[in-house]
């Protein structure tokens, strides 16, 4: 085997991929070039295994200004304003070093947003860990939350919500998915395509060090023997202070129209940004690495090309505007240096110490990549779990106890311990504090607000990736509707195992199928996203976890609706409860079982339910709304009571179901509404019009939750269990 081929293999390229490189170039690649191909053709950058399926997702709608492909998707919300949204994973770095992994995850996603010229206005995060009885899991969540908090708080972007689940399947592969939303004012969007031969290429932000190039150290022995392994930290450290300065500098540069193009540094640093900017701009780029500001002495070319040092960006600027550009950077104390120029030859050319280190056709790195369509095969566990009948289990004698156990289980319990560590109020736009179905962020200067949510029930996706993913989209939309918003667009983060395994690829393709259907049915195009494969250890994959981030528009802030019951309100249940205990919290917590068919989603029903709820809210008929999801109706009712500081007197009709099913089934397409008694009839009429089942189930009153005289729990007890359980388990390790 040739030396070069073995380097290529060590860097993760396949033998035929290497041959392809030789064919493209018509010569042997240099080592630096191999390194560049290895990252650009990696799954992470090239989407080799997912590209084909992802291309089928619905992406367009009249209000979509930018679909997938740029740093973030952008949707128009009228009044000359637009919203940028994007979600991304930082799973692996967070498993290695939870604090820095999560912090740099936030940093990266926030950069994606302001790179487009949008001011970041809200962050969210979707987290998965293993069981909290294990000290390592407590260490992970503590570090991850701290990392998100310290980074997000420092840059002044409110972290307004998210979700957290705990399942053994994530013990070795925690998930940290971060989402950011930005506001664009005016027409202008900054794009990443390098244009205009002769224009200058500028590197701005932090200096380049040897961060995150662990995998490439295979090249070290060739080029740089004296460096010890210990000088090659693979952990990236974030500097939120620099990020804050970058945000302000970039937005000022945009305001003064000093940018031709801009790209943040994601994975693979300079390599990725130079190749993508050239390729998108149908241009080339010449860089001189000697001009790259370096944090450490004697960096080799490949080290600079691969470095993942954080808080860096690449800008293209016309020579006439250079001086003004530098003035803005100086003002914000952001280091910036000219490192090269745009060319018209379509090549990325890299020089270092007078030596030509790489010269590659930019398209070959971004477009002309190997695409795989692996085999998909249904895993055997599917038949087994789906044939399990939850009714075969004995129902607990004490349903009050059962309710409390579910309410206090970490998946369901209040995430206050988490969100009180996040500054969720900075920017003074947070119109619904954490605790409702979606976060609501006002848009100053208008009467509008946006609603943001992230959703995915990994357990349901594991039991049926197709239905589970449909449900994730449906629930996200339902959460937005319950807050008074109309769902607009989706960003996703698809977390799966190794796609080269047929069982995993089956999960993935089923999941995409479900997402396509649901996004089409609910008119929520996918405008950006991210795929994270290979979330496996010891051959065991995580649950398929296609996290859905969704943004909706609230046309008038007076439509904003919380989940809090108000004393005296009538309580109405919209939608039908079915015998759907499969994959429920009830099975998990009470019977210690993760099995069964998860609840199905009838997308047409879902759509009409959401229309009915939104219409009722817009007509001013509704005083609170909450969707019933994890834990079922009983848990949803308890949360509405706790939020409102009022009890409820409930009488459910449940026909052919058992009482436990009525309480804990997780059937989709259900919403609990409360309203002034006079409005109940109008809401019923709306439901009839939309062919939605609607039941008047009781009244908000008193200081305890009573359901059919069987559940009888004082509000204080409910609140105690709901609000304190998570902290007890994280801090005290008690369950």
């Amino acid at each position: 085997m040739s030396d070069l081929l073995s380097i290529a293999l060590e860097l993760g390229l396949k033998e035929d991929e290497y041959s392809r490189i030789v064919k493209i170039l018509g010569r042997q690649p240099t080592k630096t070039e191999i390194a560049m191909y290895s990252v650009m053709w990696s799954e992470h950058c090239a989407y080799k295994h997912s590209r084909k399926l992802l291309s089928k997702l619905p992406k367009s709608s009249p209000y979509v200004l930018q679909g997938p492909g740029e740093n973030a998707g952008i949707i128009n919300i009228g009044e000359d304003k637009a919203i940028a949204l994007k979600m991304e994973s930082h799973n692996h770095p967070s498993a290695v070093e939870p604090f820095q992994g999560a912090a740099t995850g936030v940093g990266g996603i926030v950069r994606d947003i302001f790179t487009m010229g949008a001011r970041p206005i809200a962050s969210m995060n979707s987290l998965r860990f293993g069981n909290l009885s294990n000290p390592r899991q407590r260490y992970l969540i503590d570090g991850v939350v701290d990392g998100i908090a310290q980074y997000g708080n420092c840059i002044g972007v409110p972290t307004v919500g998210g979700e957290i689940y705990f399942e053994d399947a994530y013990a070795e592969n925690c998930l940290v998915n971060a989402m950011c939303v930005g506001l664009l004012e005016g027409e202008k969007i900054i794009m990443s395509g390098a244009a205009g031969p002769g224009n200058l290429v500028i590197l701005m932000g932090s200096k380049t060090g040897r961060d995150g190039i662990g995998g490439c150290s295979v090249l070290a022995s060739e080029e740089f023997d004296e460096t010890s392994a210990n000088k090659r930290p693979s952990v990236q450290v974030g500097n939120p202070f620099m990020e804050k300065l970058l945000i302000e500098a970039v937005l000022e540069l945009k305001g003064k129209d000093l940018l031709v193009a801009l790209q943040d540094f994601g994975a693979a640093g300079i390599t990725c940004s130079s190749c993508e900017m050239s390729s998108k701009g149908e241009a080339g780029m010449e860089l001189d690495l000697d001009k790259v500001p370096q944090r450490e002495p004697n960096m080799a070319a490949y080290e600079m090309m691969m470095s993942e040092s954080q808080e860096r960006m690449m800008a293209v600027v016309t020579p006439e505007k250079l001086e003004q550009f530098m003035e803005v950077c100086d003002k914000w104390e952001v280091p910036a240096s000219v490192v090269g120029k745009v060319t018209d030859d379509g090549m990325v050319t890299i020089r270092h110490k007078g030596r030509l280190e790489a010269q590659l056709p930019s398209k070959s790195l971004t477009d002309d990549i190997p695409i795989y369509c692996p085999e998909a095969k249904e895993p055997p566990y599917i038949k087994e779990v789906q044939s399990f009948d939850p009714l075969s289990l004995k129902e607990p004698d004490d349903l009050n106890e059962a309710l409390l156990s579910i309410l206090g289980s970490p998946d369901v319990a209040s995430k206050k311990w988490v969100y009180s560590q996040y500054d969720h109020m900075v920017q003074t736009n947070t119109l619904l504090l954490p605790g409702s179905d979606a976060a609501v962020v006002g848009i100053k200067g208008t009467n509008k607000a946006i609603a943001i949510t992230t959703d995915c029930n990994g357990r349901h996706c594991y039991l049926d990736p197709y239905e589970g993913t449909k449900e994730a989209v449906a629930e996200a939309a339902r959460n937005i509707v319950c807050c008074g918003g109309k769902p607009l667009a989706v960003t996703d983060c698809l977390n799966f195992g190794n796609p080269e395994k047929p069982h995993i690829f089956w999960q993935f393709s089923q999941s995409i199928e479900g997402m396509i259907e649901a996004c089409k049915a609910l008119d929520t195009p996918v405008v950006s996203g991210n795929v994270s494969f290979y979330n496996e250890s010891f051959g065991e994959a995580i649950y398929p976890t296609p996290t859905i981030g969704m943004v909706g528009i609230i046309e008038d802030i007076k439509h904003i609706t919380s989940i809090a019951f108000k004393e005296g309100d009538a309580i109405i249940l919209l939608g039908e409860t079915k015998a759907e205990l499969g994959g429920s919290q009830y099975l998990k917590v009470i019977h210690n079982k993760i099995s069964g068919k998860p609840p199905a989603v009838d997308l047409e029903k879902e759509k009409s339910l959401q229309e009915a709820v939104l219409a009722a809210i817009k007509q001013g008929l509704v005083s609170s709304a909450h969707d019933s999801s994890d834990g079922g109706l009983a848990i949803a009712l308890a949360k509405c009571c706790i939020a409102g500081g009022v009890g409820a007197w409930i009488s459910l009709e449940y026909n052919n179901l058992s009482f436990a099913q009525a309480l804990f089934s997780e059937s989709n397409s259900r919403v609990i509404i409360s309203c002034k008694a006079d409005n109940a009839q109008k809401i019923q009429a709306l439901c009839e019009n939309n062919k939605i089942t609607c039941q008047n189930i009781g009244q908000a009153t008193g200081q305890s939750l009573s359901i059919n005289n069987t559940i009888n729990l004082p509000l204080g007890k409910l609140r105690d269990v709901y609000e304190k359980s998570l902290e007890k388990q994280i801090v005290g390790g008690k369950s």
Partner: protein
Amino acid sequence: MAKAKVFVTLKEGILDPQGQTVENALKNLGYNNVSNLRIGKYITLDIEGDNTKKELEEMSHKLLANPIIEDYQIEIEG
């Protein structure tokens, strides 16, 4: 009983944004002769027993330092 000190420092090559910012601040105050400033932790404690050296090693490795990004040094007095 012995008094012990543990010095926890960021590994070489790991970015120290705090150190950098403080160094810049000193420069702005006119101390241009300062460089390479890094900030770590200085932990002092009392410890009983005869196995202190080994135990301090363990504690540092397990808890006081984060071996992925930090190094530590131990000093035991009297």
